[in-house]
């Protein structure tokens, strides 16, 4: 995998920014294997432009793997992922951003973390950087070393750093997993805001309340398969698959 990343990053230089929208997303017969196990087991999926898509499912269901594949960080074993007709890869990834389940912050100051992305994606912009820091409630921590911050503060920084690249698609892998209620509210407000700006958000969460507040549609994963893909309106009150029903009822889903 390191090989692929090295090559991808090198190829990243040559990527031209297309202006066409990236949606719809089409996934057909997607599988991904590791250690002889099919961890993504034939997934087909269509995502439209509308709203936030929430991905739910028990631990180890394959949620993080799936969004890595969609983001083009992993190569499918079989099957196809296309964003508005373009295969997922360097080209599509250039206009997407991802906040990882464990945020990876650069060993620099808080503001330098955002500056790095701004420079990469167009040019330094101290005003916009300060605005982003304020949105994350980190204005007074701008000069601190990023990795000396608390876990929750690091997650908020990772979130606004992802926004700094002005992505068309934003993947969020449990962005509020270790946050206090005020910070959760802050992140959810950011998600709602970028959604209004037309960004497609794909959100992985275990927080049913949050999913209910934000979701337009819900993809429920179970053992590497899509157990159901349902509009939010009916998912929470009337899930159609039994794993989702058990999960929402708080039963252990294996």
């Amino acid at each position, binding site marked *: 995998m390191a090989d692929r990343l090295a090559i*991808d*990053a090198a190829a990243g230089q040559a990527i031209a920014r297309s202006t066409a929208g990236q949606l719809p997303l089409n996934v057909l017969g997607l599988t991904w294997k590791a250690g002889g196990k099919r961890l993504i087991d034939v997934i087909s999926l269509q995502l439209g432009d509308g709203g936030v898509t929430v991905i739910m499912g028990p631990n180890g269901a394959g949620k993080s793997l799936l969004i890595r594949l969609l*983001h083009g*960080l992993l190569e499918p074993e079989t099957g196809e992922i296309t964003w508005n007709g373009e295969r997922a890869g360097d080209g599509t*990834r250039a206009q997407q951003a991802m906040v990882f389940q464990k945020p990876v912050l650069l060993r620099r100051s808080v503001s330098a973390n955002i500056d790095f992305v701004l420079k990469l994606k167009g040019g330094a912009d101290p005003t916009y950087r300060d605005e982003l820091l304020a949105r994350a409630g980190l204005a007074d921590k701008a000069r601190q070393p990023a*990795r000396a911050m608390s876990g929750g503060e690091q997650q908020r920084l990772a979130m606004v750093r992802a926004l700094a690249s002005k992505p068309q698609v934003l993947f969020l892998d449990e962005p509020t997993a270790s946050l206090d209620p005020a910070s959760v509210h802050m992140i959810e407000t950011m998600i709602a805001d970028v959604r209004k700006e037309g960004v497609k958000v794909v959100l992985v969460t275990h927080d049913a309340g949050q999913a209910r507040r934000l979701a337009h549609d819900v993809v429920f994963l179970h053992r590497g398969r899509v157990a159901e893909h349902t509009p939010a309106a009916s998912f929470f009150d009337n899930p159609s698959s039994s794993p989702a029903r058990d999960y929402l009822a708080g039963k252990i889903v294996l």
Partner: protein
Amino acid sequence: MQDFAEAFRLAFHLVSQMDDELAAIIALSLRVSLTAVAISALIGLPLGALLATTRFRGRGGLLVLVNALMGLPPVVVGLLAYMMLSNAGPMGFLQLLYTPTAMIIAQAILITPIVTALSRQVLEDLNTEYAEQFASLSVPWATRVGALIVDARYGLLTVLLAGFGRAVAEVGAVIIVGGNIAHLTRVMTTAIALETSKGDLALALALGIVLLAIALSVNAAVMSLRLTAERTAHG
């Protein structure tokens, strides 16, 4: 016994007065070893970065080679440099043998593998940590290497200090290509090696004290770098 006490007294006197000859020897030592470190950094850092961030055929073999070269005995390096620089050698026409330049070349050969191998390790660890985030951001290769070097600065400085420590303390390479000529190529280690056998214990001891002090300072610098790195969550 009397002699030893006298030698120590004289040595401390030399150090405290910073005797001219002593100062010249120390200055040359520092100039030679610091220049050698600078050269090894110019070659070893980019090479280490290349090895850390790219995959190519033969990389594994190159890694083994560089790691093996870390353990090169200084006298062997001295011998090789001597053969290169002597009149019969390929670089003989430059007439560099028994000059400080020859000593710099020999020490650079000695520590470049150390700087390469250690910086490769430091950069590869950080690269592993950053790889997925950088892939997500589509960071071009050159930017990635630059960011790795900046963010690993404390670790890389420690690497350079290790190289300097090795260079300034070695005697085998500089004595063969330098020759310990007074006022020209005499550095601390060669002076200690040869003045001791000639009976000038005081000068040898004085130089020994300075060398020890330098070794201690290098270690203190490494320690404070580590503390700074920890304080700013660089570790």
